[in-house]
């Protein structure tokens, strides 16, 4: 009996030695260990032919064989699979320096990026967004903004008219009136959008974008305007950038100021960007003119407000160092694709 067991063990060992494939090894394993048809299982069945006394001893050695076979095949399987994996990996070497397939990368327009940045800054201060029509009537764009027909301030902006009463808005300030007419203070709005002026040369584009801000509430002061603009300047141009107010004129604000930021390129020492002045003009602002408040039914004895307006392209050009405003409207993909978020 023991001889028979030993022969089977040798038989398994020699058969396995000839096998190099894990699947074949599995077949061999099945030949011996399959519950139904395996040769070791068959040995167990032979137990029925033995006397009850012989059975325990026989069972023991068959079980030993079975345990040995299970371990043997598991080891064989691990060995072969490891070899097979190594072989497969070896066959699958790639040149990682070869180029990847091209994926076109898109981008938002610099104007959108700047507008988003401004919206994020001012949204945090409680501003909502208002978008008015681009073809405006004369009243909202000029008259209600304290710029009656033929006021010399209209010279500041050469206007495209589409009919005697309708024009392409020259300023997002037109939105101020629409908001104030329909909203009771407190008002905090940002009004981004396209504006149009009949100006087309190296530094002017007949269409550009503005971002207008308006705050109307009780107790709003010029100090608040500068405080808010300081916050804007720090966020957009970097920590340490300061603002400077200087007197100016807009028909819809009084007092009116021009707002400069300290040059973020040279820190105010003077460089090419700031034309050696240390300051860069970025926006116009002022306290909302009493007449404008009155035109919108807001009582200037109760409420005061400030407004500011900036050119988005100007901010984009300053921030990204874009030399020419026309580049923003030419849609050259080599330019636009650089502005991935």
């Amino acid at each position, binding site marked *: 009996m023991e001889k028979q067991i030993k022969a089977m063990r040798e038989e398994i060992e020699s058969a396995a030695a000839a096998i190099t494939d894990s699947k074949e090894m599995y077949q061999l394993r099945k030949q011996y260990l399959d519950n139904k048809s395996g040769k070791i299982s068959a040995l167990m069945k032979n137990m029925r032919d033995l006397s009850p006394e012989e059975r325990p001893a026989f069972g023991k050695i068959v079980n030993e064989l079975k345990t040995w076979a299970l371990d043997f095949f598991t080891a064989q399987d691990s060995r072969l699979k490891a070899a097979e994996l190594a072989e497969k990996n070896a066959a699958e070497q790639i040149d990682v320096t070869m180029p990847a397939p091209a994926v076109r990368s*898109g981008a938002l327009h610099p104007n*959108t990026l700047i507008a988003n940045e401004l919206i994020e800054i001012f949204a945090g201060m409680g501003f909502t967004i208002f978008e008015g029509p681009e073809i405006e009537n004369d009243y909202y764009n000029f008259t209600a903004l304290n710029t009656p027909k033929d006021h010399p301030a209209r010279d500041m902006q050469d206007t495209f008219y*589409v009919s005697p009463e309708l024009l392409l808005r020259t300023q997002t300030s037109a939105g101020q009136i629409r908001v104030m007419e329909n909203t009771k203070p407190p008002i905090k709005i940002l009004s981004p959008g396209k504006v149009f002026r009949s100006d087309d040369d190296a530094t002017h584009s007949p269409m550009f974008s503005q971002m207008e801000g308006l705050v109307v509430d009780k107790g709003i002061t010029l100090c*608040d305007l500068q405080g808010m603009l300081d916050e804007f300047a720090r966020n957009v141009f970097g920590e340490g950038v300061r603002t400077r107010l200087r*007197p100016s004129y807009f028909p819809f604000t009084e007092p009116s100021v021009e707002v400069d930021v300290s040059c973020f390129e040279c820190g105010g020492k003077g460089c090419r960007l700031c034309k050696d002045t240390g300051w860069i003009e970025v926006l116009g602002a002022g*306290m909302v003119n009493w007449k404008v408040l009155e035109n919108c039914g807001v009582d200037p004895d109760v409420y005061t407000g400030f407004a500011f307006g900036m050119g988005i392209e100007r901010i984009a050009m300053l921030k990204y160092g874009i030399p020419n405003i026309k580049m923003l409207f030419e849609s050259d*993909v080599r330019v*636009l694709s650089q502005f991935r978020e």
Partner: protein
Amino acid sequence: MIVPLSWLKEYVDIDVTPQELETKLFDCGFEVETLTELGAEVSGVVVGLVEQCEPIPDTHLHVCQVDCGEHGKFQICCGADNVKAGGKYPAALVGAQVYATAKDHVTIEGTMRIKKGKLKGFESQGMLCSGIEIGLNDDLYPGAEYCGLLVLPEDAPVGADIKPLVGLDDWMYDISITANRPDCMSVLGIAREVAAALGKPLKMPALDYKTDGTKLDGFKVTVEDTDLCPRYQAHYVRNVKIAQSPAWMRRRLALVGIRSISNIVDITNYVLKEIGQPMHAFDLRQLEEKQIVVRRAKQDETIVTLDEKEFKLNPNNLVICDGKKPVALAGIMGGLNSEIKDDTADVVFESAKFMRDNVRKTSRALGQHSDSSQRFEKGVDEYATQLGLKRALHLIDELGCGSVTESGFAESVSADPTATRPLTVSIAKINALLGITVPDDEIIRILTNLDFAPQISGDALSVQVPPYREDIENAPDIAEELIRMYGYQHITPTFLAAASVTNGGRNAAQNSLLKLKRTLAAQGLCEAIHYSFYSPKDLDLLRIPQDAPLRQAIRILNPISEDLSIMRTMLAPSMLNAVIRNVRRGNDEGGLFEIAKTYHSAEEHPSEEPEEREALSIGLFDGGKLSFFDGKAVLEALAAAFRLSFTYKKPENPEKYPFLHPGMSAVVSLDGQEIGWIGMLAHDLTDAEVPEHAVLLAELDLTALRPYLCKPVTFEMLPKFPVVQRDIALLVSEKVICADLEACMKRSCKSLNQVRLFDVYKGKQIEAGKQSLAFSLWFRSDDHALTDQEVDQFVAKILKNLGKEFEATQR
């Protein structure tokens, strides 16, 4: 506006440097655009005394020994005909910079540096200069235009810098004047501000004059339309002697860019620059019926102006007439018929306030502009009108170019143009606006310097507004006067100290638009922005038929050019142009999108606010591999991002899209509503514009799409029972479309959860005119696990129906 420092100094004792004055002006609201020294381009030129002057034989040249004082003695060769020993001339030392002139010795051609040289074998260490070469002309320095050396006065100190000697050390301020300060459109106006800023008194120009005691009998001035001419003054001057103006006046006019003509004309120009009041002079001989009438022109009345242009007028135009005919276009230009001539003896001087809007309108309508009209358009005050006339009469008297008579006429609605306006404002309101407290003594100091005669009583600040400050009306105006003089550095930033807390940010629609843009960028597209206007030619490019609704564009009344003359009705023309531009620049592939308004109105020049619709335009291009499905993939990504389902159909009327490939284009719908189109650019258009490339265009009506972009997320439970997948391959006619097959399959079996085409084959292995389409089908049921047998039955039914409807067979 150009203001020379030397002229300003006549009215204010300026004790700061030119640069400090620039800062003072800047701080109080007058931005100096440029500050330039008159002689900025000239350097190293000194007074040279020619000690010896020997002709060089056979040439026009002289070799001179020139004493340049502290700089040394130099040998200089000179070709001028007026060089002589003992003369003093400008000597440009080696290293000096002067103007270079052309062969005519007059035309300036840039600047040059003086180097050591040799002429005819003689060393020359410098150059003796003409007036032109150091930047002078006859008006700036009498005799400067002589085509030879500039002869300097005998007492000129040898070796001294030439600039102070000939007035080249002057500084020119180019100041930008804001529209609210027309009173500063003059040297005197700026001087007033400088005086206030420096806290110095203003020395007014002399206004006195002697009269000859005579009167002009029977002369009459009538203003019929006082709404357009609130003040009209005239004065009669006799025995005018037309001559050249004195050097000081010519120099000042030259500094501000006005060429001297004759004393009378120069005086009017001088007063325009000095006081800011345009003046005019009529030849009394030409005034019929000895009168002046200011009135609206009659319909079709005509006038020929000084520049010999004829204009047909209407009642919108104001004219100055004599008893019979217009003799001037009010505030714009005089008539040729009353022009001052060399033999003019008796003159009527006019000084008036014409309303700025009327001058502007007339000037624009007629296309006729002048220094006078430009000044009137900004706004002239009656104070200046009176001041200007007095000043002109003083100058006539001073220059002795005529006798001023007793006959002065003043027609005005206001009694006294020099009267101040009282205004009382609350100091608390001013401080509330500024956010700081301006000390009372500062208020008094500032407003006194500005001539506002302030008085404070408790909270009440009372001022007398000077007559030329028509811009001052209320407390904010006074607040601005105070802060611009007190200094903006006193403003201390606060952060909405008193304001209510409000909730900010984008609303849902604004957020969804940003998401839309980001989705498209994630598909590899770059956002583009194009002009909102284009040309009808751009619609021609897309072959939009002349009668198509897209041709109904709003037209700009005053476009820059025809290229930018109509408002966009669709974005695709701009997009195609952008693609063409990219390809021509050698960009071989790319993707662009634009989100912008399109404008729609039945009228070319709408009377009511037109409809503005938002549109999304997409443009893809590459070297020829691009397919319709690359574009469809972008739209599908957009649909997926917003959980929408677009349907695509070949256009029923492809002539609507004459720019697209008729076989590779589709109408896009959402919820049964047509929202746009997509397609490959037509072959011939591609070949003509971007040969060897492929272009895809698409445009969606974003206004229609907008409501769907804010759809909230709704969670769907995962299926309880497993999904069973089967693949089928169908052989059908090429004409059968995928969408129809899918629809039929879905109709045939409600347990068919999803179907997707995964392979298309046309070719040798199948019958001509047929195609093989392979689909994956996913089945599932909500109430039990499907058995193989059930699914087999579903597939059989689907195949049966496909067979019936499309003669499809399984392959």
